[in-house]
């Protein structure tokens, strides 16, 4: 079937020929490789995207079910040049090691700050409870997000 949807503000059309996930559609059909596949079960959050305003694991959404929806991926939250304040804070705090979880954490954290510009430590942890990082022990990620200053433009 043909699936039309908006990805990072652009109208796209993809032919879904197999029972694939939204993650498959993003990676294999649209070449948006920032969303990562690490567990295929919605346990690790590496494939996190925002679907019609909701943070979801794109591996758990059938591609066909994403028809006519609006999706924001890590590519969509990254500015043309430079880094989003969340990305910048993570960069400075040493919150990136292997980086495989990083795009999903960026999407989840940007979504958090969009809803709650001044989250508490507990709110940060709850917002990222669905994102597994195997490298950092999370300390640097928490320190990074506690230091995020979201400017007036966002």
């Amino acid at each position, binding site marked *: 079937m043909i699936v039309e949807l908006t990805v990072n503000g652009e109208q796209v059309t993809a032919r879904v020929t197999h029972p694939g996930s939204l993650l498959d559609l993003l990676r294999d059909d649209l070449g948006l490789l920032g969303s990562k596949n*690490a567990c295929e079960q919605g346990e*690790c959050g590496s494939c996190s995207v925002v679907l019609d305003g909701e943070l979801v694991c794109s591996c758990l959404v059938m591609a066909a079910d994403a028809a006519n929806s609006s999706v924001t991926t890590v590519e969509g939250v990254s500015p043309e040049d430079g880094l989003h304040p969340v990305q910048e804070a993570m*960069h400075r705090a040493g919150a990136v*090691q292997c980086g495989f979880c990083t795009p999903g954490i960026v999407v989840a954290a940007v979504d958090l700050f969009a809803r709650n510009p001044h989250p508490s430590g507990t709110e940060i942890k709850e917002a990222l409870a669905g994102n597994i*990082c195997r490298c*950092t022990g999370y300390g640097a990620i928490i320190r990074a997000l506690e230091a995020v200053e979201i400017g007036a433009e966002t």
Partner: protein
Amino acid sequence: MAPRVRAPEGGVGESPLRPDGAAKLRGEFDYAQDLSAEGMLWAATVRSPHARARIVAIDLAPALAIGGVHACLTADDVPGRGTFGLEHPDQPVLAADEVRFWGEPVAVVAAEDPDTARRAAAAIEVRYEELDALTDAEEADRSDEVFRRLRIRRGDQALHGTVVVEGEYEVGMQDQAPLGTEAGLAIPDGEGGVDLYATSQYVHVDHEQVVASLGLRPEQVRAHPTGIGGAFGAREDVNLHIHLCMLALHTGRPVKMVYQRSESFTGHVHRHPAWLRYRHEADEDGRLVRVEARVVIDGGAYASTTSAVLANACYFAVGPYRSDSVSVDGVGARTNNPPCGAMRGFGAVQVCFAYEAQMDRLAGALGMDPLDLRELNALGTGDSMATTGQVIDTPLPTLDVIKSLRAMPLPEPATSAHHSDLPGGSGLTTEPHHVRRGVGYALGLKNLGFSEGSDDYAQARVRLTSEGAVVETAAIEVGQGLVTVLGQIARSALGISNVEVAHVDTSRIDSAGSTSASRQTQLSGGATLEAATRLRHRVLAHHDGDQLDDQGVWRDDELLVEWSALGEEGWEETVTFRHPPTTGPDENGQGVIHADFAVAGHRAVVDVDTELGLVKVVRVDTAQDVGLALNPQSVRGQIEGGILQGVGLAVMEELVMKEGVILNATFTDYLLPTILDAPDVEALLIEREGSWGPFGAKGVGEPPTISSTAAVAAAIRAASGKELNRVPIRPQDIALE
């Protein structure tokens, strides 16, 4: 007058931004999973559904009949050596007549797309005749099914203490669970050779094994360092590498393969489960007189690194303590369980859980404070290791570690009623009045670099370019920050700021060795430092200068040669760095076995709901011997990440086995610590000069994982009053036993 020569930015001791950080944050970094090539096929693997079986027949026809299938290969199609292995080539590339573990590869296919490849793999009909599987390590020992035995005897074996504690301990099978699964792309070069881009910790050893099994000349295969989503030991062994190259050469097309998570759990080696029996004897003052240990680890079906893991477990069986008399017997069992190999800590983790429980019990029997007992017996510089007798001749600040742990303030008891701060978290099942707090301590010792007489080296090249300098290396960046620290070392040594690190393939540089054993900062860092230092001296001597900076060559505040000109002169220096030589063990396990050591200690604070058996790890504080912290932020990253993997082994991470089958090979069932499980960490870096690493640096990757597990276990014992001789500690171990 201010000198015009400028000091470099981003040198040693700073924490510059990771050069790959922005790309990773933007989702633009290329991992092996993300690679593609024109005309690429996709591969899939047929795996054994039995722990042990005879292969009666394989029928490829149903798979070959599927449209879009280009190749189905079995053991008969391996052109060269039919087996591979990191230390001993005993593992079939594809099983020929018998499968020896659940998940062992039997055939591989290549097809137009991943779905077709998986359908084709499922369509291949393999007829098996099931055989009795050997899945018990003790039984393997009795049947002499072993990869290695190691016997250590030191001191007067008739010595005995007056205070004796004995215990039996068990460590479950932990998985590295790197977030990126195994993946790779092999591209035929059109002349019979192949380029391989695959997840790896050690491209030169992959190269060796691919060359042998493909029957090619070394120069026909190039293994390229590739973006990798974590490793922790899981990437030392070959898995899909030879398969991809076979399929690429067979089809003449680029071939890609990506393991799904459940396949990844069978496709890489795990941490060895271990069974440990200990007897500690001390005199009335608490001085260790004799330690006896029996160490059994299950290596699974094939050798991988079991010999070296067993050796580490035995050599570190007493930990960072002195003892006059020692007896250790180690067994690396061969079974039909999944192969086990390297994981962060490499044998030292399993024994630490046991010897630290013993030290606490000994302190209890003596009526001593646990830290006082450790201080009394602490192994330090100039002492002989209790097991091997090796004299420690690099700094080993065990006493400083203990002193630092003592000085760290303890947190207040939990007053917050927020559910995420209580055991069980958002399950909201815990009542605060059932929660008891416990505090536990543990110390661990780890070797740095390869041991037992191996020729351990790393090559690095430093080249000057018109922009600055490039460090070339085949060492693998797994996330730890080698790509940052090699640049820092070169900047400090050259005196310039603009340094890049380039990961180059096996044809362009000699081996850097494995990114394991906490060794790359010391080994590849050592090679980089020596190459950059020599290059600077040569450039200055050639131009008769006295300083080098980003502007060029200086003498007496005069710029003699501008960088743009210097960069055109083709300067380069290649260095192969070796650590101090080591020896194998004699018949009593004695020798100069290790090149360097690091000690770390952990103090864990836990809250335990003893009624429900739920645990919240509140804090794990640490003091770690780091030599010199070349990049304090990266060191802290290694410490915090390593501690959480230790916490995982203590309270949740285990591959559950039943008759050789992994029952929980998914992220739903294999529990990994989330951000809500992560304790707060205070880390004190103990810096002491004298190691042979660059600027005195020691490796920092593994020590955080050695004793954090043991410290958490000790804290849970303190809170619950239970013996808890097995990790991971499950709720039923606390609430029901």
